[in-house]
């Protein structure tokens, strides 16, 4: 199999890393070994099981315990980690991962091709007999199989082009765990003592749903190439502690009881900054916060209603009311750092006059109560706030008021995850479903447009829309990222023009509020912190 241009780029990036050595040496001079970091987090409630059990919070802890095959940066570019290089065929259906030598899990067992193959197999297929679903973002629909060619080479095959495979290996849920950990019984999978990774930290102690204490692994020497550090981590210990209330996390941070607190309410950030506390909002690849529109919901099959909604939302007011300068305005349905994101701000312009006109044309007349109606039918619906996004309720409160101005009555419902999924998923009476989804490769956009190849069918159009069918097909079959980018931009334009997705604000699901003395941390493309290279100043 010939090494293609991308593989060559990977090799070159390795050389570039060596060229950057002087900068690294300078950083090393300032570096201080030792020290303990206390990280306050709002939840560790999803447990320590496999695949989808890793959530937005436990994913941060896992990032320190377990390694990944590649590191993906905020632009979606993959760089070597446990896979020191990789080959891919021209049709993007076969990949050979070359693994770093001498890597071991914390129990000393080797992280070899057999272990990587076992991990990939479980990501792709899951094991429902033990309650383990497949990994959502893994390209399972085209997955054919995995094979350990020898101790350090793994071959992964797909039935169709799968451009997203390599970036997905840097996802916060594609963690490499020891084979013994993968094979635990269902009632043992959540035992963190038995869940072993090969990361720069090992578990010293933990209490389910409450805390995890990590200790530096002394023999670690296989960190991601993208991080300017080698050998064991500098920090001696990291303590993750659950503090549910954001105000208490902020208070503990201010009083010096912790170095980092995750997700403080936006309105509390300014006073913290004034006290010298740093707010880090790492760029995160994925969709922006917004609503996918169910065209099967009453009245939302009419494109004029959808477009009216698109222009009735004043996104600047949302930014000004709920957020701070750490949130950037949205320009499309993708996060601003996604390389394929288009600038389609004009399609998202706040224009209530246009919304009113569109609704008038669609036959929706304002009633005495200000709500538009068509005969006895009123233009009103339930709007469910996302249980996954802290700021969702506040944003939706603003949106409800904005929609009211053009005569649309939305009733805000705040529910928990189970109720949200039970009431919103597959419920055609709910027109808007709030989305907060990260990805590492924009090819995911193709999976949500239709129901082809088990697509997510966000807009409930199935395969009835020829334009969406073509776009989904072209994205799925793409073998070149640059050519695919053009299709993705066309898809964004079409989806926004048709009012099939209503963006609201940039998605900052992980906001790290931290003391100024924390230095050298890095973030993955999905905004997950890596403290392998971090140290404490002073």
């Amino acid at each position, binding site marked *: 199999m010939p090494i293609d241009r991308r593989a060559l780029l990977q090799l070159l990036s390795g050389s570039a890393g060596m060229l950057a050595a002087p900068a690294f040496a300078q950083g090393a001079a300032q570096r201080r070994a030792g020290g303990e970091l206390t990280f306050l987090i709002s939840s560790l*409630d*999803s*447990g320590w*099981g496999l*695949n*989808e*059990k890793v*959530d937005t919070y436990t994913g941060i802890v896992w990032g320190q315990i377990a390694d990944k095959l590649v590191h993906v940066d905020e632009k979606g570019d993959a760089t070597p980690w446990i896979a020191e290089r990789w080959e891919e065929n021209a049709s993007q259906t076969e990949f050979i991962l070359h693994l770093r030598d001498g890597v071991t899990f914390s129990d000393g067992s080797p992280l070899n091709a057999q272990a990587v193959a076992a991990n990939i197999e479980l990501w792709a297929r*899951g094991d*429902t*007999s033990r*309650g383990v*679903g*497949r*990994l*959502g*973002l893994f390209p399972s629909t085209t997955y054919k199989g995995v094979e350990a060619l020898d101790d350090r080479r793994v071959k992964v095959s797909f039935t169709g082009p799968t451009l997203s495979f390599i970036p997905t290996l840097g996802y916060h*849920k594609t963690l490499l765990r020891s084979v013994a950990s993968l094979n635990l019984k*269902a*009632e*043992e*999978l*959540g*035992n963190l003592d038995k869940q072993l990774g090969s990361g720069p930290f090992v578990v*010293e*102690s933990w*209490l*389910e*749903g409450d*805390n995890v*204490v990590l200790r530096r692994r002394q023999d670690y020497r296989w960190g991601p190439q993208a991080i300017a550090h080698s050998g064991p981590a500098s920090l001696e*210990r990291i*303590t993750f*502690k*659950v*503090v*549910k*209330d954001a*105000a*208490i996390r902020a*208070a*503990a941070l*201010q*009083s010096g*009881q912790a170095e980092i607190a995750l997700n403080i309410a936006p309105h509390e950030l300014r006073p913290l900054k004034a006290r010298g506390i740093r707010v880090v909002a790492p760029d995160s690849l994925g969709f922006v916060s917004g609503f996918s529109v169910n065209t099967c919901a009453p009245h939302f099959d009419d494109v004029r209603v959808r477009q009216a909604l698109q222009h009735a939302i004043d996104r600047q007011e949302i930014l000004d009311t709920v957020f701070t300068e750490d949130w950037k305005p949205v320009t499309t349905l993708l996060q601003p750092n996604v390389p394929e994101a288009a600038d389609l701000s004009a399609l998202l312009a706040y224009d209530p006059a246009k919304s009113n006109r569109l609704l008038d044309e669609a036959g929706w007349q304002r009633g005495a109560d200000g709500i538009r109606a068509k005969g006895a039918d009123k233009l009103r619906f339930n709007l469910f706030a996302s249980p*996954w996004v802290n700021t969702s309720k506040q944003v939706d409160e603003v949106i409800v008021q904005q929609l009211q101005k053009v005569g649309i009555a939305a009733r805000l419902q705040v529910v928990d*995850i*189970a*109720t949200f*999924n*039970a*009431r919103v*998923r597959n419920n055609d009476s709910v027109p808007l479903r709030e*989305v*907060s*989804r990260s990805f590492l490769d924009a090819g*995911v956009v193709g*999976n*949500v447009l239709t129901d082809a190849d088990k697509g*997510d069918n966000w807009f409930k159009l199935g395969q009835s829309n020829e334009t969406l069918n073509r776009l989904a097909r072209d994205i799925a079959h793409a073998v070149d990222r640059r050519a695919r980018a053009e299709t993705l931009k066309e898809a964004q334009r079409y989806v926004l023009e048709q009012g099939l997705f209503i963006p609201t604000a940039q998605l900052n699901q992980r906001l790290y509020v931290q003391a100024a003395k924390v230095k050298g941390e890095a973030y993955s493309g999905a905004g997950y912190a890596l403290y392998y290279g971090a140290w404490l100043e002073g």
Partner: protein
Amino acid sequence: MAGAGALKAEASGGMPPLLRRLLQVVPVLFGIATLNFLILQLAPGDVVDVLAGEAGAATPETMAELRRSFGLDQPVWLQYLRYLGQLASLDLGHSYRLNLPVRELILTRLPPTLLLMVSALLLAILLGSLAGILSARRVGGWLDTVVSGVTLLSYAVPTFWLGLMAIVLFSARLGWLPSGGMLTIGAGHSGWALLRDIAAHLVLPAVTLSTFYLAVYARLVRSAMLELHGADFIRTARAKGAGEWRITINHAFRNALLPMVTMAGYQAASLLSGAVLVETVFSWPGLGRLAYEAIRTRDLNLLLGILFFSSILVVIVNIAIDRLYGLVDPRVAPGASRA
């Protein structure tokens, strides 16, 4: 009420009262288990809805397979029978979400909750009694007015708000006490250092949780003692020349203990539910927080396990209260002769 139960058991003769009480517990626990199960069936969504998340893993096929794996696809009556079977064999199963045995999860969280509950209850009883006694001794005086005002306030103030304010003042501003947790994680303390560390962490949550109950006890003791104020045996004691404090403590307060003990029995149950808020605010690693998460995530096995375990705890406390009646007032002790 619990005391009345003990009286009837004694009166009926035959079976020892404790055994009789334990046998009465069986249908009670069966009823509780059934009620728990049925109520949880009414909640929208299930654990698979939670596990599916929103990352595109939730294909109908995967969700159906997971439901089959957890037995959630079976008819409700079958699930119920399976659940009862599990309980009968004292097997609480494992948490589908956390992938850990339910019994292990509960036993890890039980000691912190018990420590918090007992500390709060003791604080409430001691300080509440003291406040009630002082109030009753000088009815209408300045002390009575102050105690009444403070108890009314602590009765009315929401526990979570009080907890938040206590953290802001004593932890963030003054830095006297830690803001949360049960101990300094990773400090590796042992012996006295560990006890001191736990005590420092316990102060704020225990005081916060006790405030509401403290107010209840203060008012209860005050009114009970006032009722006894003009009683014959108090007048007799006074006529015999007993000092006012002796009368207050040995005669009046001892008689006021009976309603207090009854109240403590009731509060053992309500403290458990009140602990949810306090445990959340103070990041106390107790059973209440675990139960709340189990509800939120529809972790049926775990929640049923916690509810069942809590029910047993409350039943045990009530049996203990029954026995305590005898100590507080020999007239209601099993075997006591009645007029």
